[in-house]
């Protein structure tokens, strides 16, 4: 599955001189919403890191007597069907959302990026074949693919990361391939070959750094998608194993209790919304900052 962002034309982005960073920052800075994204995302990262310190209760300790209590001074977000504190679970749940999204996008970036880079660099029939394979991957709806992969491997953290990464490999391959094709025709790459540089050196030292920025920007936007896919899989019931708190899993449990205890789904739902929103704003700002068309003005 590809978010709309993925199709924006980045094929002809010329490599940038270093001062572009400064200009990019200026563009990023001009867009106030990007800063909101940075701050909110930073806050969520901090929340995840400090979860043991700031969460008021143990997120997995049950108290059957105190189950399904509405929000109160004692439990700000109420308690769930096992009497666990929802606020604490929302706080701890941020860890899974962040770990899964960051790790899966990192894997997708690494694998997809490598495939795109190599495929674009080699070109010819190999490229055609690899891209055909990527098209095959792309033609599976990502949630369905995630479902099958998780059903296949069993739902745990690592498999979830694999499943989500797999859905993002093809788009990243495409994102990395387009500029590679342009870059490999550039004279400095030819110069490297004329100088007897190995292909590995050319790809890693001369091509990769020139497309890293775009790929990383797409990464931040895709992270938002990854958070959503993780939550969706958890919502369908194929998430990280209990009692580990995850936002999607909490909504799933809460959805079944929606009439008795709407707070069970509302708070983790808002948490997902805020994180995805922050990531989208952040990625948006970053993209404006690296998009030469917007910067040109």
């Amino acid at each position, binding site marked *: *599955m*590809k*978010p*709309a962002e*993925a*199709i*924006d034309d980045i094929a002809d982005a010329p490599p940038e001189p270093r001062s572009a960073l400064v200009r990019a920052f200026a563009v990023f800075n001009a867009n106030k*919403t990007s800063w909101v994204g940075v701050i909110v995302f930073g806050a969520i990262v901090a929340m995840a890191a400090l979860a043991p310190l700031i969460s008021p209760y143990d997120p997995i300790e049950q108290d059957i007597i105190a189950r399904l209590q509405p929000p109160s001074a004692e439990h700000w977000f109420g308690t769930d069907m096992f009497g666990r504190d929802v606020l604490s679970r929302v706080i701890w749940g941020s860890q899974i959302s962040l770990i899964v999204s960051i790790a899966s996008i990192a894997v997708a970036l690494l694998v997809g990026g490598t495939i795109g880079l190599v495929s674009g660099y080699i070109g010819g029939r190999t490229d055609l074949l690899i891209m*055909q*394979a990527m*098209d*095959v991957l*792309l*033609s*599976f*709806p*990502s*949630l*369905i693919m995630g*479902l*099958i992969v998780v*059903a*296949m491997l*069993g739902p745990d953290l690592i498999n979830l990361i694999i499943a989500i990464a797999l859905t993002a490999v093809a788009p990243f391959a495409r994102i990395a391939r387009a500029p590679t094709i342009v870059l490999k025709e550039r004279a400095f790459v030819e110069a490297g070959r004329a100088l007897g540089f190995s292909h590995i050196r050319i790809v890693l030292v001369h091509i990769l750094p020139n497309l890293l920025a775009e790929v990383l920007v797409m990464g931040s936007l895709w992270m*938002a998608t990854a958070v*959503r*896919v993780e*939550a*969706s899989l958890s*919502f*369908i019931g194929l998430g990280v194993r209990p009692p580990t708190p995850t936002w*999607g899993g909490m*909504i799933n449990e809460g*959805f079944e209790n*929606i*009439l008795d205890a*709407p707070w069970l*789904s509302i708070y983790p*739902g808002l948490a*997902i*919304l805020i994180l*995805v*929103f922050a990531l*989208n*704003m952040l990625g*948006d700002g970053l993209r404006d900052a690296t998009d030469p*068309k917007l910067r040109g*003005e």
Partner: protein
Amino acid sequence: MGRYILKRLAAAVPTLLAVLTVVFLLVRVVPGDPAQTILGDQATAEALAALRARLGLDRPLHVQYFEFVFAALRGDLGNSLVSGRPIIDEVVAVLPHTIDLTLAALVIGSIFGIPLGIWAAMHRNRFIDYVTRIGSLLGLSFPVFVSGIFLLLVFALHWRWFPVIGTSSSADFGDRMHRLVLPAVNLGLIMAAYITRVTRSAMLQVLGEDYVRTARAKGVPRRVVVWRHALRNALIPVVTVIGLYLGILIGNSVLTEIVFNRPGLGKVIVGALNQRDYPMLQGLLVIYCFLIVVVNIATDLTYGLIDPRVKHA
């Protein structure tokens, strides 16, 4: 044109073959036993083995594979293990619901998304633009099941404007549309968010191009420039997005179907996975992939309609 479509379809054959292979293998690797789901938890191992033999699941994998591929190439996707009915029939039975939902979401998405995108682009960096951008970002950020739950709580339960079950058991058209509203709005608003964003950025790009500037300089009124020149070109990326959105739409429609309890392809596929209905799962995935190929071709053709510069020569 016809030849072009045929050629594109022919070019998609290797992709589809690869998809068939991947699908076949993927489906076999998923643990679980269709015989068990059919016979239930009290069945003895002997009974399970007998059923597996009857279903042909005990034959060597390559035999099953070639049978599957040749049948699929003939357009025969086989019968469901669970219901015993042809997969095509099962799909055709739910297809109208999927089409209803998808079309309605597309219409809602376009009705809101395109004008909003143009509006925002024409007021770049003004208040309207900011509101639109943040609004559309917010729309993109809503997990579809969260928005679905909110819609249900507010419009179905609190205000009782719309029914909870997103599908009608009667043939009454009015009822069918009435029940379609909430699920379609749920999917459509997210779609509108995507389209708004893409329309806006496409418009901005086109408005900056020379010929638009020239037209403006020649004194062509702004409205005419926007509607006659800019929009036409800006629509190309929008169409691309609508095409590409299909994948997201499918994922989101699964969740929407769950929340609103609508029948549809998405739910069928999840059901087939749960029941380990191999042929069904295979058939559906093949149909999905075929659909995506067709949509890609349709997208390319639409370019030609919108932009006369892209010639089908």
